[in-house]
């Protein structure tokens, strides 16, 4: 394999008014023709900067040094803007994380797609440009390209936009594509579509692909070789299989162990203690040593920076003790015991009956019946916009349902107003997705946690006592009491949010995607904390999440939502192992696999994106994307009924028709009944 793109000893720093900050420190990599390289690392580890610097795309505040930047034999070190412009979009191109911001909102899609050709071969006739744009849209599977080329980005859904961006990156037939977290902003089902699209295209075109991601699942799913970055350095570089079976660097290993898996329920997650350093030069020696389980405070880790050394064929790691690491089997560092299952009482703490909620034409909830019992955790999953947050808000009495009833313990929220409503609300508390915006940035942690008690008119002394108690409970040191949220990390903020929610000992706590803004290692801390809390309190929990792994890990029961309805609900293991609604199947099959060996071609990948909630299809809302749908599905809304066996209900006419469901794997992928 010839090196297509080769970078050696890349160092990047940024000038700012506070001085210089080193962000990338000695990164080298090569990509061969047709090779798929994954770049993995936590947020801030320098993944994007590395690639942008290698492509001459960083602004003037960056100081870039490298021993070699070679693109198809051409030395690009110190290249001028003009020289880069000749190469970019021509030989190498890029796909960014956020499809909305990477498209120019005021330019037609077609123009943007054909622009690489237009700038590199200005003589190309307009008609050809248009034709190319249409062809590209077709290639990335966007229906009706002739119409779509003349549309603007806002007329595309998120998944379509990302397809368009990919089309744009490929339109001038580059040899290398760099994709920076291309699916992070997308739903699982769409993510699965995009991942397989990229895989197909790169195989067809023999592209070299550099895929930046923080999701180990994606790596397992789609690349050949992986490069793990930590604090601006490469800590390990390995063929993808070795990564999961024999990681040679403690960090790689910790990443793997902190990750809840969809496939099986495991014990406690292995949270990586501490936080990543703020810059590449903030920690001496091995940058990972303060958090490393193997370092054991050994001198060499603190003083000497380990070099990348070969540990197996094609596998190199930057650790002084790779032997020790390799000798320990994966999972051995994990405390295997999971918190013992709690006794779920039959007490219903939260009861929703026939709840509907519409915002104007948008029908966010279309008849939801749901009970949460004291002591259980109900997981709720579903794609973006299916009404999860709305459900949470209705349950808390923050918005009144358009129809239906909400009961908290024995209080019916309907008809309550003012003070009484406010008092009733206190029995349901919520932990929000965004740990930053859910805390008032002008308040100290102490007053944030104390606020519910202040409002409930507790005595000062009681408040102080309870605040200390809560801080301890969520594992925050007292030194944080007088800090402001901005002085804390995301995970710590989320703990504050949890402490606040628990302050009044509510009967129900709703977690609305509490970990999706966090890095895996931090996510594990929060998930573990939840495990502990469930053992110590006896509230009912609702846990909303995108990540099915997390959901499987924390839930006793799960509910799967689609377009404002619950389509399947039941015991968590049962639902994950024997899903009976095609949509549940789609969700589970779309989730990235846990190990490269589990890659399979026959996974059920559903087409398209959920319909607009303002325009819900008749009958079963999923029928437009369902390969096994029939006439009946278009006419009758399936009820959420108990299945013939197990503790499990599903809203599908064919939930008990296992033969029919089996078609989902190998059967036709297009919907049987056109929408």
């Amino acid at each position, binding site marked *: 394999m010839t090196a297509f793109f080769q970078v050696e000893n890349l160092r990047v720093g940024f000038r700012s008014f506070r001085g210089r900050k080193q962000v990338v420190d000695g990164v080298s990599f090569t990509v061969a023709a047709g090779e798929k390289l994954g770049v993995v690392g936590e947020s801030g580890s320098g993944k994007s900067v590395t690639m942008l610097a290698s492509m001459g795309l960083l602004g003037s505040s960056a100081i870039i040094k490298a021993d070699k930047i070679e693109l198809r034999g051409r030395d690009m070190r110190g290249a001028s803007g003009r020289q880069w412009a000749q190469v970019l979009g021509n030989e190498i191109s890029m796909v960014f994380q956020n499809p909305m911001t990477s498209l120019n909102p005021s330019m037609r899609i077609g123009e943007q797609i054909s622009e690489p050709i237009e700038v590199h071969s200005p003589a190309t006739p307009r008609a050809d440009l248009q034709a190319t744009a249409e062809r590209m849209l077709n290639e990335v599977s966007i229906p009706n390209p002739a119409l779509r080329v003349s549309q603007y980005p806002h007329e595309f859904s998120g998944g379509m936009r990302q397809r368009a961006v990919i089309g744009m990156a490929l339109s001038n037939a580059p040899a290398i594509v760099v994709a920076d977290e291309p699916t992070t902003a997308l739903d699982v089902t769409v993510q699965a579509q995009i991942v397989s699209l990229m895989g197909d295209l790169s195989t067809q075109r023999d592209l070299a692909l550099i895929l930046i991601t923080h999701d180990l699942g994606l790596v397992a799913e789609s690349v050949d070789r992986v490069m793990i970055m930590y604090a601006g350095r490469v800590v390990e570089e390995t063929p993808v299989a070795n990564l999961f079976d024999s990681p040679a660097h403690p960090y790689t290993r910790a990443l793997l162990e902190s990750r809840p898996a969809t496939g099986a329920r495991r014990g406690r997650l292995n949270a990586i203690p501490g936080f990543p350093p703020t810059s590449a030069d903030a920690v001496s020696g091995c940058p990972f040593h303060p958090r490393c389980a193997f370092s054991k405070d050994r001198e060499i880790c603190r003083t000497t920076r380990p070099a990348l050394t070969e540990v197996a064929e094609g596998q190199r790691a930057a650790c002084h003790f790779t032997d020790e690491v390799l000798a320990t089997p994966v999972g051995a560092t994990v405390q295997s015991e999971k918190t013992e299952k709690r006794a779920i009482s039959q007490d219903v703490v939260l009861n929703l009956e026939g709840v509907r909620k519409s915002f104007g034409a948008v029908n966010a909830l279309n008849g939801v019946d749901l009970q949460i019992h004291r002591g259980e955790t109900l997981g709720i999953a579903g794609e973006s916009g299916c009404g999860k947050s709305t459900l949470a808000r209705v349950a808390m009495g923050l918005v009144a349902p358009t129809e239906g009833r909400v009961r908290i313990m024995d209080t019916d929220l309907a008809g309550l107003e003012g003070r009484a409503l406010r008092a009733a609300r206190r029995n349901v508390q919520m932990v*929000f997705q965004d740990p930053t*915006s859910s805390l008032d940035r*002008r308040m100290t942690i102490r007053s944030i946690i104390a606020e519910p008690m202040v409002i409930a008119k507790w005595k000062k002394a009681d408040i102080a006592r309870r605040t200390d108690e809560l801080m301890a409970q969520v594992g925050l040191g007292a030194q944080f009491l007088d800090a402001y949220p901005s002085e804390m990390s995301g995970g710590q903020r989320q703990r504050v949010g949890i402490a606040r929610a628990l302050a009044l000992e509510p009967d129900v706590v709703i977690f609305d995607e509490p970990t999706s803004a966090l890095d895996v290692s931090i996510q594990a801390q929060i998930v573990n904390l939840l495990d502990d809390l469930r053992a110590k309190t006896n509230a009912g929990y609702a846990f909303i999440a995108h990540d099915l792994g997390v959901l499987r890990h924390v839930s006793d029961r799960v509910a799967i939502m689609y377009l404002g309805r619950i389509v399947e609900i039941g015991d968590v293991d049962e639902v994950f192992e024997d899903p009976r609604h095609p949509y549940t199947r789609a969700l589970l099959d779309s989730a990235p696999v846990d190990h490269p060996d589990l890659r399979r071609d026959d996974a059920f990948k559903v087409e398209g994106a959920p319909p607009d909630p303002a325009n819900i299809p008749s009958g079963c809302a999923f029928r437009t994307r369902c390969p096994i749908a029939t006439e009946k599905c278009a006419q009758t809304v399936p009820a959420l009924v108990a299945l013939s066996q197990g503790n499990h209900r599903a809203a599908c006419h064919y939930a008990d028709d296992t033969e029919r469901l089996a078609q989902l794997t190998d059967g036709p992928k297009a919907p049987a009944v056109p929408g």
Partner: protein
Amino acid sequence: MTETFAYLWHHRGGRIGLICLTFMVSVAVFAPVLAPYGPNEQLSGSELMGMSAEHWFGTDLLGRDILSRTIYASRVSLTAGALAVLLGAVIGTFIGLVAGTLGGWADSSLMRLSDSISAFPAILLGAAIVAILGPGFLQVAVAIAIAQSPLFARLARAIAMSEARLEYIEAAESMGASKARIIFRHILPNAAGPLVVQASLSVGIAILMESGLSFLGLGVQPPTPSWGQMLSDSLRFLDFVPVYAVVPGAALTIVLVGINLVADALRDKLDPQSKQKAGS
């Protein structure tokens, strides 16, 4: 507070602004010490003198020292500006927060009211209000405050609405916090940054407006000097004391430079997102 000053001092524009502003504020505070003559001291026989050693910038028709009057006039401009903005900010912010938080009927009627005020050209609105209240320092301050209040109302409303979208407001609601608590305990402190920036910019606008009204003869009562009124006065004496048209204008400009630079620097610190909306 000290931190803010330190920040301003290390900000390129902020430092110049701070110097200009400190200079003019000291001039206002120490006017009796600095001014060589009383502001209303009429020196019979020295009327309309040009620049001289006794009167650096000459004297006016009544033989009053122009430098001394310019110095004393800083008091009017600065206090009128500050007072007007304080009033306007309090009224406007309150209206905006209430409108933005309550929404619905209260929002649209309060905002129509604020629209109605902004539809008037500010100086004309000022002229009309002064016509009702009569000329005078307080009246002018009130007029300017009314003209400025929609700016604050709109800003406070926008902040209230964007804050209301943040989850901490929902969190507070779920704890059973009342609307009033949400407005005053949560939204107001978070709105403070942008509001302070707006207020600092508004002081400049207010001073400008005060000088405009005075220029039109609608400002403070004679013999109290104000820059606008001096400027309009000066035009009659261009032939005798041309520098008269320059001195009050320059003083006004120094104050405005100071305020604008400080406001810009404050914006960089307190309200960095709004940087690009510098025009509004």
